[in-house]
C-alpha cells in the first residue's frame, strides 16, 4: 500500500495533464456558443492551474526529505521564474538578435535596421513627438494638475474633497481606447455654418470663432492627444500626492503660519520639499507611460497627421509591414529610451522598500 502511493500520485498527475490537454483541444476546436466556450475556458484555466499545483505538490511529497528540500522551492518559485524568463528576459536578448536580421529574420543585415530606427522620417517624427511633446507636456501637466488638486482639496470640506477626488480619479478606470472615443467626440469637427456636435468646436463657435479640425492641425494635434493622457493620469498623480501631503506633519505648517508665511510660501517651503520623493515617483511613472504611449495614438489618428510615436511605428512595422527586423530595432530603441527612467524609478522604489 505504501509503495502504491507514489505511483498513484504520478498517475493522477499524468491523467490530469491528459484531460487538460484534451479539453483544451475540445475548447479550441469544438462547436459551441461563445458564452459557453468563454465560461468553460475560465473554469479550465483557473481550475486547471489549481489542480496542477495541488497534484505537483502531491508528487513532491512522495520524495525523501532530502529531495523534497530541493524540489519544494522549484514547485513554488519555478513557474514564476520560468514565465518571467520566457516572456521578459529571453525576449530582450532575442529581440536584440532579431534587430540585426532582415524583415523575415533570415539574413544578417548588421546595423541596417538601426539606421532606419535613427534616421527614417517617421522615427525622427516619433522622437520629436515622444520626447518633446509627450514626455514633457504630458508628464508636467499631469503632475501639476494632480498636485494642484491634491493641495487644494486638502483644504476643503472632507465630503467635498472626497467627491472631487473621486471624479478626477475616475478616468483611471477607463481604457485608453474608451477615452479616445470620448475625446474624439469632444473634438468632432463640422464645417463652419453647420451645427457643431463636438463640445470644443461648439464653444469656439459660441465665442465667435471658426470651428477647427483639431486632430489635423500639425503639430498642435499632439497636444490634443496629450490632453487625453492628462485627463487619464492626473487622478493617479493626485491620489499618490494627496497621500503624501496628508503625511506631512501638521505642526510644520502651523509653525510656518505663526511665523507669518503665506499659503504659497508654505507650499514651496514646507509641503513640496516634504513630498518630493512622491513627486519624483509619480513623474517617472507617467514618463514611462508616455514613452510607451500607443493606444491613444493608434485609436485617435493611427499615427497620421504628424502624430506618430515610437510604439506605433513598432506596431506598424510588425503587423502592417511584417518587417520583424525593423520592428525589433524599434523595440530596442524604445527599451533604451525607457531604461534610464526605469532605472531611476526602480531605485526610488528600492529606497522606499529595500526590496533589492
Amino acid at each position, binding site marked *: 500500500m505504501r509503495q502504491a502511493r507514489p505511483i498513484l500520485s504520478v498517475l493522477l498527475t499524468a491523467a490530469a495533464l491528459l484531460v487538460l490537454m484534451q479539453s483544451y483541444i475540445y475548447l479550441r476546436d469544438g462547436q459551441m456558443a*461563445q458564452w459557453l466556450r*468563454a465560461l468553460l*475556458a*475560465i473554469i479550465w*484555466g*483557473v481550475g486547471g*492551474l*489549481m489542480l496542477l499545483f495541488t497534484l505537483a*505538490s502531491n508528487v513532491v511529497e512522495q520524495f525523501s526529505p532530502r529531495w523534497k*528540500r*530541493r524540489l519544494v522551492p522549484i*514547485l*513554488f*518559485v519555478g513557474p*514564476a*521564474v520560468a*514565465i*518571467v524568463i*520566457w*516572456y*521578459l528576459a529571453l*525576449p530582450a536578448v532575442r529581440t536584440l538578435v*532579431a534587430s540585426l536580421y532582415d524583415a523575415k529574420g533570415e539574413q544578417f543585415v548588421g546595423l541596417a535596421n538601426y539606421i532606419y530606427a535613427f534616421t527614417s522620417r517617421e522615427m525622427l517624427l516619433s522622437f520629436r513627438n515622444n520626447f518633446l511633446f509627450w514626455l514633457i507636456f504630458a508628464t508636467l501637466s499631469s503632475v501639476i494638475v494632480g498636485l*494642484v*488638486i491634491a493641495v*487644494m482639496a486638502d*483644504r*476643503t470640506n472632507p465630503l467635498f474633497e472626497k467627491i472631487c477626488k473621486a471624479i478626477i480619479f475616475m478616468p483611471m*478606470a*477607463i*481604457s*485608453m*481606447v*474608451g477615452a479616445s472615443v*470620448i475625446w474624439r*467626440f*469632444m473634438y468632432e469637427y463640422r464645417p463652419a455654418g453647420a451645427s457643431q456636435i*463636438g*463640445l470644443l468646436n*461648439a464653444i469656439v463657435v459660441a465665442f465667435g470663432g471658426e470651428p477647427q479640425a483639431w486632430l489635423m492641425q500639425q503639430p498642435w494635434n499632439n497636444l490634443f492627444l496629450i490632453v487625453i493622457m492628462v*485627463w487619464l493620469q492626473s487622478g493617479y498623480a493626485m491620489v499618490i500626492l494627496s497621500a503624501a501631503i496628508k503625511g506631512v506633519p501638521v505642526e510644520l505648517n502651523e509653525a510656518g503660519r505663526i511665523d507669518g508665511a503665506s499659503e504659497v510660501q508654505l507650499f514651496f517651503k514646507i509641503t513640496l520639499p516634504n513630498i518630493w520623493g512622491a513627486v519624483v515617483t509619480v513623474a517617472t511613472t507617467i514618463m514611462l507611460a508616455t*514613452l510607451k504611449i500607443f*493606444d491613444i495614438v*493608434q*485609436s485617435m489618428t493611427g499615427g497620421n497627421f504628424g502624430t506618430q510615436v515610437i*510604439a506605433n511605428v*513598432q506596431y506598424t512595422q*510588425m*503587423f502592417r509591414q511584417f518587417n*520583424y527586423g525593423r*520592428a*525589433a530595432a*524599434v*523595440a*530596442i530603441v524604445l527599451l533604451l529610451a*525607457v531604461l534610464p527612467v*526605469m532605472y531611476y*524609478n526602480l531605485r526610488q*522604489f528600492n529606497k522606499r522598500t529595500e526590496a*533589492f
Partner: protein
Amino acid sequence: MKKAGTMLVYAILIFLTVAWLTPTLGLLVSSFRPDNEVSATGWWTAATHPTESTFTLDNYRTVLGLPAPGQVIQRGRENINLLTAVVNTLAVAVPATVIPILIAAFAAYGFAWIRFPGRRWLFILTIGLMGVPLQVSLIPVLRDYIKIGLNGTYLGVWLAHTGFGLPLAVYLLYNYISTLPKDIFESAFIDGATHFTIFVRLILPLSAPALASFATFQFLWTWNDLLVPLVFLSSNQGSQVLTQRLLGLMGSFGQDWHLLTAGAFISLLLPLAVFFGLQRYFVRGLMAGSVKQ
C-alpha cells in the same frame, strides 16, 4: 482675504471637477439619444432644450445585437454584436487576473519563507524586469506562439498577461507575505504541515487584502488593454475583445456617434463598477507599485 482665498479654492476645484466629468457625461447622454438627434445637435441640447429631446435604448440594442421587435437597424450595422466582445473580454480578463495572482503568490511565499540556494538572484531577476516595455517581448513570443499553436488562443493571451504582470505581482505579494508574523506557521510546521498546506490554509487567506489589491489592478489592466489582444488574439470579429472592437468601430463607423458612444459606455461599465467598488484596494496597489504600465 482668507475667505476670498477659500472661495477661490472651491471655485477652481468645482471648475476642474466639472471639466473632468463633462467628456464622460457627453458620452453617456449621447448614447441614449436617437441617431438623427446625435448627428444634428450637440448632446448638451438634451439639457438646454429638454422638450425637443428624446431618449432611446435603441443604440444599445443595436451594438449589443439585441434589437427590439420592429426596430430598424441601418445597413451594415446588423452584426456589431458587442455582446460577444463582452463575453470574450471576460474570458480574457478573469483568468488573466487569477492566474498571475496564484503563480505570484506561490513565488512570493517561496522567496519569503523557503531557504534555497540562488533565492536572492532569482528574486532580483523576477522583479527587476518590471517596467520592461511589452514591445520588446512581442516578436519573440509571437514567433513561439505561431510555432506551438498558441497564437489566437485565450491561453496565449492569459500567459502573455501573466508574463507581463508577474514582476509587479510578485513584488506586491512578497512585500505583504514576507511581513506576516513567523510564529503563525511555526506551530503548523510542528504539527507536520507541508509548505503546500500552509500556503493554501494560512497564507492565501491571510494575504487576502494584498491579493485583492493586485487583482483590482490587474483586472482593470487586462480589461482595458489593447496591445496584447491586438497582437496575440486572432483578428476575426468573433473572438475580439472590447477594446479591439471599439478600435474597429471607430474605423468603420467613425461618424455613427450614437453607436460609438453606446459601445464605449458598455466597455466602461464593468471597470467603473470594479473601480468604485474596490477603490480602497486599487489605491493600495497603486501606492505600492507605480512602475507598471
